């Protein structure tokens, strides 16, 4: 596999360079290579060849990152498991994989029913980075996102998917790192923007600066920029919303690239932000996890008044070289330019399908024969239109999915767990609302007289990650309904203002 071979070459070539800065400590590529080799030693000694999936507890330390590369060199896939998420949810995910193996670098583990992998104890200093042969269809990782039926949904990505993605980005030659770059990695490893944030630096011998989970991220990121003169930033828009009151104190001329993704990017804040990073090329990326990280992007203009926008939101641009976009109506038929419809896409980056979820696969994928070729499309659930210059504009979701802090959440999953602890049938609706900074937050409206919600909240905390637990709860005696007899979510939002 090309990208794995390139990772091998890059690590060997840059042994003296710093590879990671984690919690105030630098690790060189040599340190990294030794840790990878130790983990490979453990895998070859413990894990059967036929086992392809290994749960990876994301402790975000150097061994967590080394494990990712070690798994790939061994022809295996990582399935990131966040130790801060509820244990029930994590065990459900691991059980659905059918794997017995979990890699956990922490001293104490929460997964007693699995075979625990740790880096081998004896001092192995021999570096072993030669990749094993893999097939295109073997998996590189599986990420679990919120699912509508109360259980998380797995998105498997193959080696070939990831390879196609890297080729797609490199094709345009707009984003080209070198070995002296210092790159931010602010994302949870359960979120696929993390892959971009570590893979491109590793392929070029650059250094990756991580953000501790418990830190106040936006201030920690600024500290890294200020103290270490970072050159490459990959951010979600909410980070600059938080930093906005302090823009006049930020001056980071070293930043060469700044990428945004995971939410609507507004042109007015970009106008101010670009003064903080005057020498940066800035991009707005878009892409569902199902199509391997990024599917399209827009390169922002130095003069922000030239940026293509709709209602102040910057366009998601044009698809990568190997990605096909079409806007369709309800019967999957292409609609004319300028009209809004669902974005469907096809490419070599596209997942082979949700993990053990035939029902969802039937709903989300369809095939179409074009010029004698059968093309498999994914229905993104995103409402978009294409303008006359072939730029795509994102308008919102077609279904009940929202994004909080970049994480995709099915509102019905939140409602499912909220209702689970109620004996009586009470109407509950989860909605996304916007706080004063313009960041989305989750709220729960309950159609009832007020009552104590401790039980409900504790249950939600036990079943879902913190970003899925509503930050606001309100009791409303009678829900507003629209003309179609459906709960009027727009009106519900006004109760939270």
């Amino acid at each position, binding site marked *: 596999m090309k990208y794995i071979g390139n990772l091998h070459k890059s690590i060997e070539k840059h042994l003296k360079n710093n590879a990671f800065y984690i919690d105030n400590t630098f690790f060189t590529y040599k340190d990294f290579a030794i840790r990878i080799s130790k983990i490979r030693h453990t895998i070859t000694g413990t894990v059967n060849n036929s086992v392809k999936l290994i749960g990876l507890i994301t402790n975000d330390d150097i061994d967590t990152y080394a494990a990712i590369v070690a798994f790939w060199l061994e022809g295996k896939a990582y399935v990131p498991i966040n130790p801060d998420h509820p244990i029930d949810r994590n065990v459900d995910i691991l059980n659905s994989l059918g794997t017995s193996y979990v890699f956990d670098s922490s001293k104490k583990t929460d997964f007693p029913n699995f075979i625990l992998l740790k880096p081998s104890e004896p001092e192995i200093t021999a570096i072993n980075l030669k990749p094993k042969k893999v097939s295109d269809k073997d998996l590189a990782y599986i990420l679990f996102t919120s699912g509508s039926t109360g259980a998380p949904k797995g998105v498997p990505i193959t080696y070939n998917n990831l390879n196609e993605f890297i080729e797609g980005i490199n094709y345009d030659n707009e984003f080209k790192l070198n070995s002296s770059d210092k790159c931010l990695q602010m994302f949870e490893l359960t979120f696929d923007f993390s892959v971009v944030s570590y893979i491109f630096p590793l392929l070029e011998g650059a250094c990756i600066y991580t953000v501790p989970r*418990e*830190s*106040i*991220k*936006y*201030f*920690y990121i*600024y*500290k890294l920029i*200020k103290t270490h003169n970072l050159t490459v930033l990959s951010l979600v828009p*909410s980070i600059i919303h*938080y*930093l906005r009151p*302090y823009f006049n*104190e*930020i001056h980071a001329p070293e930043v060469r690239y700044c990428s945004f993704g995971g939410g609507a990017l507004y042109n007015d804040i970009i106008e101010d932000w670009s003064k903080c990073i005057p020498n940066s090329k800035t991009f707005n990326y878009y892409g569902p996890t199902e199509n391997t990280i990024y599917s399209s992007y827009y390169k922002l203009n130095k003069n922000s008044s030239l940026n293509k926008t709709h209602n102040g939101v910057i366009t998601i641009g044009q698809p990568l070289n190997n990605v096909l976009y079409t806007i369709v109506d309800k019967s999957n038929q292409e609609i004319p330019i300028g009209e809004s419809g669902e974005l469907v896409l096809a490419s070599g980056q596209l997942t082979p399908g949700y993990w053990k979820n035939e029902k969802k696969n039937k709903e989300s994928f369809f095939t179409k024969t074009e010029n004698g070729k059968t093309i498999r499309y994914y229905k993104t659930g995103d409402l978009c239109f294409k303008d006359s210059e072939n730029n795509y504009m994102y308008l919102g979701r077609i279904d009940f999915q929202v994004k909080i*802090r970049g994480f995709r959440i099915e509102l019905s999953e939140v409602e499912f767990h909220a209702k689970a602890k109620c004996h009586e049938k009470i109407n509950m609706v989860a909605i996304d609302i916007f*706080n004063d*900074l313009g*960041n989305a*937050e989750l709220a729960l409206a309950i159609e009832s007289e007020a009552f104590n919600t401790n039980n409900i909240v504790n249950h939600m905390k036990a079943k879902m990650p913190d970003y899925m637990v509503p*930050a606001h709860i309100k009791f409303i005696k009678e829900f507003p309904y629209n003309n179609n007899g459906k709960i009027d979510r727009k009106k519900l939002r006004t109760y939270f203002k």
Partner: protein
Amino acid sequence: MKKEEIFEKITPIFAKVLEHNNFNLTETTTTNDVDGWGSLTHMIIIEEIEKEFNIKFKLLDLMNMDNVGDLVKAITSSIS
């Protein structure tokens, strides 16, 4: 202003913003120790503290706040 006085003034601010008083602020308290103290609530707490003491923090102060002790130090130096 004495440290104790600052603690007395900031504790109700935390309680108001976080909507609970299930915590005991000491110099070594971090966001990890207090339920609900995260990205957004931190920003609101900072704004409320600025109003209460009539000060304006610099980004340089804010980026080096790792615990409540650092916060109290920054308040002390801002009012003096």
